[in-house]
């Protein structure tokens, strides 16, 4: 038996695998099949009937999304079955389906947020009839509460069940369902409770009609008046592909774009709904503290103040880079401070014990995000991907659900949406027999260590034990580097790649912030503990009036990720560049430019005058291989050679202190999110529900 099957589709002969659906086969020859319920990344429901095609000889039209090609049979004379996706028969069938779908659908397109990007609207134009023949009463459905993100107008619902399947299959929280039946069937959450998934916003994209729309974006704009900019998300270290829709100077919404290697086509709620934070609490001009109060000053005044604050001797200056720092700013700041002789520079959280070995692979997610799909045993050490990389967590779940992945966890127990083997919450488990047994027979083992696993006193020992374990269980092999770190901050890898770590003899973050240096420069560092700064004077370069700015003596405003073209390296080591969607706020400047200006003030002008020149420097000369040379690509398995060497012997041994959580509150993990009203609402709700992903 051959694995392929010949079909005649619209007069074209095509041979496709038997496992294909008829819809896939039709698309193979370029036929356009309308659909509502079918979605590539969800299971097949077959309930909208929009994808009907004609099979010559069949008594009825076929729903092509649910028809497996291998179940068709050739004609009696042995010729391939004849499928038609066009013609009067098919048109009449689709026309009839469309008429039924529209029977109970309200005619409220003019006030519907989906208008202009609505599948039902588009397909009604293409396949529907001009006018309605229905003069009975239409049914109306009560709107449901689904939380602060998803607005519902349930009368518009056509019961495609995409949202039901998404939350059950991808998000892994079975919270949406279809209740009752027949004409009274309704989509709802259980007793209208809010969705607790951190991927819930995706149901808005999935909804083919205007039943589920974005609550924060409601009535804000029409899709055709928005400027659409492809960019990169910085809310976590995944670097998901996003589209920033803006109008004038405001970001109106953020949508995911497809990047199969990173986010497929999903986006976490934080990345999607954080946009209102980009317009609030912004630093739009420089400030300096006079008589204990921050007063607005001009740039020259601010830079002079900075110059004064930095004239305390290189050893009395410490520089800490924050979570959202872009590689350009990191590079420019590092070049500038090194030129002053400053050694106390760090981009890692306090207590971090990684990134100093000089081996890039030690801090990358070498198996890659997509690599989890081929993997069969995954061990998470001090990492909670549901909070730290929510979209990747859905991918792990997918691999567990459809593949043969099993997951083990060393760290705090949490609801990850898939079952896992819990090896306790102590580093000692790394050497346990149970963990070795877990990997037994695994062809592609994967060990992922989270930031919480290494930001601790015995972090070095944990790292080296984890790498040792990886080498032992065959995770490092030809063509497979199954060891990696899952970062929580978008800027971390880029800054590490730029070399933003303490120079020889320099202080790390924890020591810079303990009040022992006279001047501390915070590059958007708000997640660090600022309580021990004592009398240090603080220069804050950042975007939002957050913890750092309120402690600062001088505030220099810089542009946020939506306002510049900036390089970010994701946790896999994938170099990606954001695109400017809107102008920086007020007098805010691009981060690198601030340090270029300062360097001129100090008479040690940096060697680049534009961001492109700076990026060229990061990329290196032609043929030179730097972390920034490739764009959009993750080194992945190429790291296996570097990982097969043992870590330098650690001076500490594994402790028994349990792993902490890297992120406290999923919705409030960075200054942009903390400025967002939507995120605050989500956070309050999650806390009150006490089932918050972060609280588990």
């Amino acid at each position, binding site marked *: 038996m051959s694995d392929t099957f010949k079909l005649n589709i619209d007069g074209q002969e095509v041979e496709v695998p038997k496992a294909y659906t008829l819809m896939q086969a039709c698309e193979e020859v370029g036929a356009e099949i309308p659909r509502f319920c079918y979605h590539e990344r969800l299971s097949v429901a077959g309930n909208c009937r929009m994808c009907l095609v004609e099979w010559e000889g069949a008594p009825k039209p076929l729903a092509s999304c649910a028809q497996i090609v291998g179940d068709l049979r050739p004609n009696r004379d042995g010729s391939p079955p004849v499928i038609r996706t066009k013609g009067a028969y098919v048109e009449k069938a689709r026309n009839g389906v469309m008429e039924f779908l529209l029977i109970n659908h309200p005619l409220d397109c003019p006030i519907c947020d989906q208008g202009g990007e609505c599948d039902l609207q588009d397909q009604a134009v293409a396949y529907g009839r001009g006018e309605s023949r229905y003069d009975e009463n239409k049914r109306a459905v009560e709107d449901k509460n689904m939380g602060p993100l998803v607005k519902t107008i349930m009368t518009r619902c056509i019961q495609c069940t995409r949202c039901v399947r998404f939350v059950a299959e991808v998000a892994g929280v079975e919270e949406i369902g279809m209740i009752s039946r*027949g004409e009274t069937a309704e989509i709802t959450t*259980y007793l209208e409770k809010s969705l607790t998934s951190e991927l819930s916003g995706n149901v808005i994209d999935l909804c083919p009609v205007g039943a589920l729309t974005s609550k924060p974006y409601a009535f804000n704009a029409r899709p055709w008046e928005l400027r659409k900019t492809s960019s990169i998300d910085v809310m976590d270290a995944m670097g998901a592909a996003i589209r920033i829709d803006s109008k004038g100077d405001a970001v109106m919404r953020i949508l995911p774009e497809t990047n199969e290697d990173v986010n497929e086509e999903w986006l976490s709620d934080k990345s999607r709904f954080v946009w209102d934070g980009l317009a609030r609490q912004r630093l739009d001009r420089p400030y300096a503290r006079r008589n204990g109060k921050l007063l607005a000053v001009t740039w020259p005044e601010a830079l002079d103040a900075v110059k004064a604050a930095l004239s305390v001797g290189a050893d009395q200056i410490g520089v800490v880079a924050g979570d959202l720092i872009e590689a350009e700013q990191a590079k420019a700041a590092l070049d500038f401070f090194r030129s002053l002789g400053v050694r106390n520079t760090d981009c890692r959280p306090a207590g971090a014990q990684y990134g100093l070995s000089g081996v890039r692979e030690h801090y990358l997610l070498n198996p890659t995000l997509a690599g989890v799909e081929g993997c069969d045993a995954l061990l998470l050490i001090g990492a909670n991907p549901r909070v730290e990389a929510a979209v990747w967590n859905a991918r792990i779940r997918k691999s567990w659900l459809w593949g043969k992945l099993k997951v083990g966890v060393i760290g705090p127990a949490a609801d990850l949406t898939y079952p896992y083997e819990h090896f306790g919450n102590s580093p000692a488990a790394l050497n346990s027999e149970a963990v070795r047994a877990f990997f037994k027979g695994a062809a592609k083992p994967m060990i992922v260590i989270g930031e919480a696993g290494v930001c601790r006193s015995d972090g070095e020992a944990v790292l080296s034990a984890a790498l040792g374990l990886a080498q032992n269980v065959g995770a490092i092999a030809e063509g497979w580097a199954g060891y990696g770190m899952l970062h929580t901050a978008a800027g971390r890898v880029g800054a590490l790649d730029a070399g933003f770590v303490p120079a020889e003899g320099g202080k790390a973050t924890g020591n810079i912030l303990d009040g022992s240096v006279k001047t501390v420069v915070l590059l958007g560092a708000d997640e660090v503990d600022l309580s021990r700064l004592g009398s240090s004077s603080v220069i804050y370069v950042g975007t939002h009036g957050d913890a750092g700015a309120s402690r600062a003596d001088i505030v220099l405003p810089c542009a946020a990720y939506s306002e510049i073209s900036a390089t970010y390296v994701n946790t896999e080591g994938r170099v990606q560049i954001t695109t400017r969607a809107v102008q920086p706020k007020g007098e805010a400047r691009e981060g690198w430019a601030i340090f270029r200006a300062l360097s001129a003030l100090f008479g040690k002008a940096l060697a680049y005058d534009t961001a492109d020149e700076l990026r060229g420097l990061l990329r290196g000369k032609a043929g030179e291989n730097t972390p920034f040379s490739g764009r959009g690509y993750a080194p992945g398995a190429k790291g296996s050679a570097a990982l097969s060497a043992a870590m330098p012997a650690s001076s500490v041994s594994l402790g028994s202190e349990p792993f902490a959580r890297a992120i406290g509150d999923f919705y409030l993990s960075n200054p942009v999110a903390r400025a967002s009203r939507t995120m605050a609402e989500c956070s309050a709700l999650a806390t009150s529900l006490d089932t918050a992903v972060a609280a588990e």
Partner: protein
Amino acid sequence: MALRRFDLDAGGDSFAFKPETEEKIAFWRGKYPADKQRSAVIPLLWLAQKDNNGWLSEPAMREVADRLEMPYIRVYEVATFYTMFRLQPVGKFHVQLCGTTPCQLRGAEGLKEVCTREIGKPMHVTDDQRLSWEEVECLGACVNAPMVQINDDYFEDLTPEILSGILSCLRNGAAARPGPQVARVNSAPEGGTPVLTDASLYDGSKSRLRELPNLPGAPASAPAPAPAPAAKIEPEVPKAPAADDLKRINGVGPKFEAMLLEMGVRTFAQIAAWSPETVDTVEARFGFKDRIDREKWVAQARMLADGRFDEHDLIFGRGKD
């Protein structure tokens, strides 16, 4: 069908299965493998409804979901899909009134009036908590239409008066007799059967197989059955040619004609005079049961004997000669 929602107020905060139900739960769960326990959701919901005074409260539904480790929304979907799961309180006696076509044609509308008058609107519980009613789709007892189901029992062949009597019995704590409310057994005819009353139908005597030697009750060595008597058919002239063309009778072919002649039947008049017993005898001889009756030979012969040939051919068709 109205929207079906949990009555959250009436449901309270908690629900517990009765201790004696545990055995039944174990029975239903035992039918499914450990990883397919959710298959038991409908039986468990049903048991929960029984333990909760005939309706399914929200805590009861959650109890089922927790036991089967199912997300609440999945159980909610099932509970709202099936209308036999009642999401609002019902009376001690809940009347399900069949309103589907056969019952409606036999007077279900009148029963509805009784319920509305004596209980109230559908799903309304009387103040004494004893009665409530709702209209349901076909309960599968159309032969005994119109009918209602009260709790687990069918009450059939109702009239408004009878239903009213049943309701007042139940309201006053008296027992009501379930089943048909007229003089009939199950769905047998009212007042006993008018047909198939002959006792000989049931003693085997009518069976043609009674002559088989191994038939129960037959003599061990039964004599060969005597040839059916050619009673009352006296041959006039053996093998004499027919006086009439017997083949004019539709159904009589050359073969039957020969047999008839052998029996001495030569004229239409002879056949026209056959009594039912004679017909039986002739049929027995032919070995074709009922054929003469079915083809109306006697009537045909009567017409032909009268010389009404055209009329015969028009009505019965001309026999093939």
